[in-house]
């Protein structure tokens, strides 16, 4: 009975969510968001950084609830999905996001062997997928939206250069 692949996926999940030494993780990108960039929407856009974080966080709670819980959280059933309001302070929203990640990570870390990754589990739209499919989904989700957050922040701060270009103004 091996857990080598489970551990590898946990490593990749951690790197996607909060890797302090690399620039692509979700929390790394949130740390550089200024207060006035949190609710700001760029020209031509519809989503703020808050909107994206709320989406990412809700998905963590809902995916965990359907794959490992009772499947009661549904966006079409009011008040069943843990969420945050726009007026909440950024720090409180990040804590809520961390709790969602904690729940999901706990569920994955409790898988007893690598064979569990091939076991079908339910997604919130009612279809079953291999567990590894669901894990991959949320790894990509963190990174993809981290990129979007970075782009919005960069536009807000007028610093859309490469990070290594210290002369960028």
């Amino acid at each position, binding site marked *: 009975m091996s857990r080598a692949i489970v551990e590898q996926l946990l490593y990749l999940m951690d790197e996607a969510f909060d890797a302090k030494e690399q620039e692509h993780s979700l929390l790394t990108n949130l740390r550089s968001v200024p207060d006035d960039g949190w609710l700001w929407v*760029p020209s031509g*856009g519809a989503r703020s950084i808050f909107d994206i974080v709320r989406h990412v966080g809700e998905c963590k709670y809902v995916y965990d609830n359907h794959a490992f819980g009772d499947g009661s959280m549904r966006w079409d059933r009011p008040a069943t999905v843990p969420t945050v309001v726009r007026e909440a302070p950024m720090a409180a929203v990040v804590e809520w996001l961390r709790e969602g990640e904690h729940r999901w990570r706990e569920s994955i870390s409790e898988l007893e062997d690598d064979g569990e990754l091939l076991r079908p589990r339910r997604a919130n739209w009612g279809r079953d997928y291999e567990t590894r499919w669901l894990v991959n989904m949320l790894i990509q989700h963190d990174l993809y939206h981290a990129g979007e957050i970075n782009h919005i922040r960069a536009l807000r701060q007028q610093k*859309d*250069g490469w990070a290594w270009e210290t002369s960028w103004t």
Partner: protein
Amino acid sequence: MSRAAVEQLLYLMDEAFEGIEQPWHSVLANLATVREDDWLWQPPDGARTIRLLTAHIGAATLLYDDHAFGEGTIGWNDPAGDFGLGMEDLQSYEALDNEPPMAGIIAWTTDWCHRFRGHVAELDDSDLSRLRRNHRGDMKEVRWFIALQIQHYSYHAGEINHIRALHQRNDRE
């Protein structure tokens, strides 16, 4: 000799770049909805273009491929393989006079991602902890190079999507 960990990484890498089972967040799926007039567009107060990000993905993959699996000599100031352009030139904010059109740069980037994938596919699990020097001079396990590529693909796919959505005015989750 196990290859279970390698196969798992290949799965994640394929999903992040091509999006075989989950297209939504992959590089190629997000490039598929980019139009010619999106390619060089810069948002207000922005600098980076979809063209720049796409070329950056290809150039970074070339760089990491060389350091993880090759001679480990290529740097950002070197020619971008046999492409006829420099690594740094490819990542310029403005398009170059002599660069290929959108389809050519996407094809070049795709080719390098396939080459990197091919080298990963030749590994077994024991190779993943082998140490290689990255372009900054630090010794890293081979798995580190692969993980970074997976992160890189999804992250820049998100940035590409955001630029495209701003230009096409259909920004949504």
